[in-house]
């Protein structure tokens, strides 16, 4: 075997670290070493350059938009985001945003984060940035006590909705929140089960999108974990709100 002489025999640890074959304890040792020893740090960088091109073989996959919403919430990212028509758009959307702000600061921040997700996301590599007619809708679902329970943001063009609880909802394990769309004067239509503690992304089927509009409302009822057995709300409605158009 043709081992170079300018490194000690143990120097393969750097390569092994970067390849990923070391166990947790060995990794920790090397990480400590790299923090204080420039030679170790440089060797790790060298092996990163050598081996990372293998990742070219991994096909890109699209993560759920909720990931970006969670990242923004975690780093405290606020609304003034790139190329957002939200600020310029008049009417229901902006009023609605102000409304959310006046309720819970957290809820507003998350709702804005959702808007930004829906706005920024399709502007990425997936969609030509020339699409001028993106339509968003939003709703703040108010609880009987007057506070915001959930905020929902709908991206009509991409047929999806993000619904975020303003605060974690405390429910026993035999109860779960279910979201309904109620077109004016009609029966509720089940949209889907939503998470009580986290953002839920829902893909909207065309039949549902056709019924979205400013005359419809959204509502959350408490149902058995698998959803209402009847196809209509069976438990108490814990939050509801009208839908506002964003653009």
């Amino acid at each position, binding site marked *: *075997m043709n081992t170079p002489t300018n490194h000690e025999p143990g120097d393969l640890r750097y390569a092994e670290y970067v390849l990923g074959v070391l166990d947790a304890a060995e990794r920790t040792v090397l990480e400590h070493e790299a923090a204080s020893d420039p030679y170790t740090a440089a060797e790790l960088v060298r092996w990163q350059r050598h081996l990372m091109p293998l990742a070219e073989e991994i096909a890109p996959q699209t993560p759920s938009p909720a990931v970006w919403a969670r990242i923004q919430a975690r780093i405290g990212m606020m609304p003034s985001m790139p190329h957002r028509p939200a600020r310029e758009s008049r009417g229901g959307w902006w009023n609605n945003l102000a409304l959310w702000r006046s309720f819970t600061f957290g809820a507003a921040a998350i709702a804005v984060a959702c808007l930004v997700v829906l706005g920024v996301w399709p502007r990425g590599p997936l969609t030509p940035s020339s699409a001028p007619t993106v339509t968003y809708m939003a709703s703040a679902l108010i609880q009987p006590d007057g506070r915001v329970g959930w905020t929902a943001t709908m991206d009509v063009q991409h047929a999806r909705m993000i619904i975020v609880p303003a605060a974690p909802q405390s429910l026993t394990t035999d109860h779960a929140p279910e979201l309904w769309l109620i077109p004016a004067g009609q029966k509720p239509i089940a949209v889907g089960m939503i998470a009580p503690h986290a953002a839920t992304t829902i893909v909207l089927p065309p039949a549902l999108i056709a019924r979205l509009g400013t005359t419809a409302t959204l509502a959350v009822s408490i149902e058995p974990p698998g959803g209402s057995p009847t196809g209509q709300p069976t438990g108490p409605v814990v939050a509801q709100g009208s839908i506002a158009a964003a653009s």
Partner: protein
Amino acid sequence: MTPAGTDERNALARLLQRSGEHDQRAFASLYARTSPKLYGVCLRMLRERGEAEDALQNVYINVWRRADSYDAARASAMTWLITLTRNQCIDRLRQHREAPVDTDVLETLVDPAPEPDASSEAGEQHQRLERCLQTLSPEQQSAVRAAFFTGATYNELAEHRSVPLATMKSWIRRSLIRLRNCLES
């Protein structure tokens, strides 16, 4: 290195540096351009969407906090980001994988790889690495790929291939030495 590859490389490096200065627009743009690749890495290593999304979230939170330590002279932005992502996934695997590695995970390694774009800089680097990998024996090559794509330890790899630990270590160490000589020649 093609001009297009250089432009892309520089653009990502700038976005990463500006993210290090907590420029939110740059960070949003960096996320839009790099998250599909990094999520692909997470999914490949963790095999489960929820885990992979949690890992991806942590990666970008780390990027936001640590991008100021990125040094464009040392590594491309993509290399830096993929390293951060793999480390995040490997840490998770080491924490959660008390039980023996799921053999299904290792069996799926022979997925046909997408053809990397050979005209890009990353594509060129990949081709070079691929040529060096071709000089290894089939067992060595497959052990190196298994290690890279799954983040499995020597022990897990040896168990899965039903070879003694010393054999697996020897395959991989010889491979690494050969790859280094080939890539640095």
